[in-house]
């Protein structure tokens, strides 16, 4: 079997009209599991809303936030969601630039994941502030006392970086959807036709539009890659620019970026399995694509593992007693169970991705991807909590496991994300129809070309055999070549 056929991620014989019909039908009638998932997400969100109302009424003490635990789980969850947002846009942009064809059926929901993760992440600093009505203080405007925010603070950088990333990612997602909106405009009726008619902005698919579209998409991809890296580097600066043990680490920015990509890839795997089932997308979200996603996740997991070990080694061999004690305490102290969960889920579980049978077994991949993300969540917690619990001053040492209010809000954030995501995939195609058509088109041509070359080679061989095995005149090295 040729390499092209072996590597193909989708059936190239899929008719274009069928691609339209399948995707539109999937949006209109998902499996019942979709509605169950939606109901679960709404219930989870209600938990968070109730907890937030309680916290708003009774103050931050109900969340257990007090000296030394000023940050804790809310900020860990904020970092987790920011991290989750990275894989979508970043991987979509990188894979687009390097012309990785297999991204085409899955990049849409990955980009949507980015946007909704950022929207979820953005809520946590507000919740964490307590006084949510003073949120606007972070905006760079001159107040009546003539005071601006401190532009030297990484917290202000966060506000700039996240808002830039959110708007750019949303634009990247939207621009990539325009040709699909036109398909939906042309092939739906009623309110949907009007809705998609507005969103497609009058797209007609002429050569000028395609040319500008391609250029714009590439430019946006080029900007989004450094932007995504800068955003998570800036988030890591929230910690690394302090002098707290366990935070003041040079490798934090690449460590955060690798962790972000890792958790994002794991989330893509989870959503891949879910959407494939909810929307009957077996023909589009194929096992070959899952395999490639798994391999990518494994590679990133190894980078993350390496950076983690580097951090441990630097702490162990660097002669900073506070850092070293903290590391020992993480592994043996009150947070040891969490620490070893992180090690197991983040460093050991990814090795299951080495087995092809597992990579092609969707229920297993669902479990593995959830375990990977559990590992990445507790990794964030292990960054924030132990440092606050066991910093420089022993009289301040205090272990906090989070109150019910904190847990409910964190739990509910998954409901909020899930709700936004599920509404999105019901309203918009989770598989990019025009890109799948492009994929089929290119694949078909590649296979045809390869067959043509094979036939040509066979003819040449037959000709050479008929000629007594001698190389044709003027082409002496043909057989050897």
């Amino acid at each position, binding site marked *: 079997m040729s390499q092209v056929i072996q590597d193909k991620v989708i059936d190239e014989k899929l*008719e*274009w*009209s069928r691609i*339209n019909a399948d995707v539109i039908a999937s949006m209109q009638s998902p499996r019942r599991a979709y509605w169950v998932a939606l109901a679960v997400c709404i219930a989870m969100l209600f938990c968070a809303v109730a907890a937030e109302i309680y916290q708003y009424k009774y103050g931050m003490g109900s969340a257990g936030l007090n000296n030394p635990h000023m940050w804790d789980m809310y900020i860990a969850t904020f970092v987790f969601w920011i991290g989750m947002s990275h894989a979508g846009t970043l991987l979509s942009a990188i894979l687009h630039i390097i012309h990785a064809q297999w991204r085409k059926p899955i990049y849409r929901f990955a980009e949507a994941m980015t946007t909704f993760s950022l929207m979820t992440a953005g809520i946590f600093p507000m919740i964490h502030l307590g006084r949510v009505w003073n949120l606007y203080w972070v905006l*760079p405007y*001159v107040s009546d006392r*003539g005071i*601006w925010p401190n*532009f*030297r603070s990484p917290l*202000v*950088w966060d506000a*700039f*970086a996240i808002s*830039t990333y959110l*708007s*750019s990612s949303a*634009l990247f997602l939207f*621009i990539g959807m*325009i*040709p699909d909106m*036109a*398909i939906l405009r*042309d*092939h739906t009726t009623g309110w949907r036709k009007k809705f998609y008619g507005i969103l497609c*902005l*009058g*797209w*007609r*698919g*002429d*050569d*000028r*539009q*395609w*040319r*500008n*579209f*391609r*250029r*714009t998409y590439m*430019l*946006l991809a080029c*900007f*989004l890659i*450094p*932007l995504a890296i*800068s955003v998570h580097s*800036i988030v890591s600066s929230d910690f690394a620019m302090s002098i707290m043990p366990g935070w003041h680490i040079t490798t934090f920015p690449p460590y955060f970026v690798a962790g972000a990509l890792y958790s994002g890839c794991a989330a893509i795997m989870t959503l891949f399995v879910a959407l494939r089932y909810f929307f009957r997308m077996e023909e589009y979200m194929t096992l070959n694509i899952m395999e490639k996603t798994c391999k990518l996740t494994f590679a990133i997991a190894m980078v993350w593992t390496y950076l983690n070990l580097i951090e441990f080694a630097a702490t162990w061999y660097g002669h900073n007693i506070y850092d070293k004690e903290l590391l020992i305490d993480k592994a043996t102290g009150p947070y040891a169970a969490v620490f070893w969960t992180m090690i197991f889920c983040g460093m050991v579980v990814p090795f299951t991705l080495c087995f092809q049978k597992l990579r092609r077994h969707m229920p297993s991949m669902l479990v593995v991807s959830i375990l990977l993300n559990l590992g990445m969540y507790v990794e964030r917690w292990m960054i924030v909590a132990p440092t606050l619990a066991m910093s420089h001053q022993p009289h301040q040492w205090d272990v906090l496991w989070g109150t019910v209010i904190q847990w409910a809000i964190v739990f509910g954030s998954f409901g909020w994300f899930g709700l936004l995501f599920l509404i999105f995939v019901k309203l918009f195609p989770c598989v990019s129809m*025009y890109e799948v*058509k*492009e994929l089929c*088109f*290119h694949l078909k041509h590649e296979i045809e070309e390869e067959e043509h070359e094979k036939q040509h080679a066979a003819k040449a061989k037959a000709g050479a055999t008929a000629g007594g095995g001698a190389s044709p005149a003027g082409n002496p090295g043909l057989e050897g070549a």
Partner: protein
Amino acid sequence: MSNHRLLAMFKDFDDAFEVVDKIKGKALSSVEIDDVTMMSPIEHPDIDEKLGDRPSNIAYFTLMGAIFGVTFGFFFLAAAQASFLVQPQGGKPVIALPTNFVLMYEMLIFFAVWTTVITFLGMSGLLSRRGTLYSEKLTVDEIGLVVEVSDGDLESVKSFFKENRALEIREEKV
């Protein structure tokens, strides 16, 4: 003067490109290749080669947006920091370049991205009222060629398209 616009629909890119090649070979004296617009459900990789060089200048605007972003970023931050002149800085610079670079970088990207998108909308003719010459099959699997012709050439161009396996021909008055 061209007062009719024709849309000829073809089964696939091969048929459409064959017609484009014939137009380039002056098979139709009244139609120049620069006046031909191709409409398709996907972008064909050889479309630039077939239709000729039709540059897209979006990148220049992106560059301008980026330069504006970084310049605006610097002056915005510097102006805000300069308003702290009256306050004691403890030996630190009033306008701290290393930390400002981070935000200038973010503003560079912010303005570059928005400029790119706005330019794309403008240059692609999106959001503008266009003619009604369109077929819903263009978002399924058929390829369309749009040409502008005068009254006198209308029938000859139509018959040319029919001879070259056009599945359907639509027209509108300009």
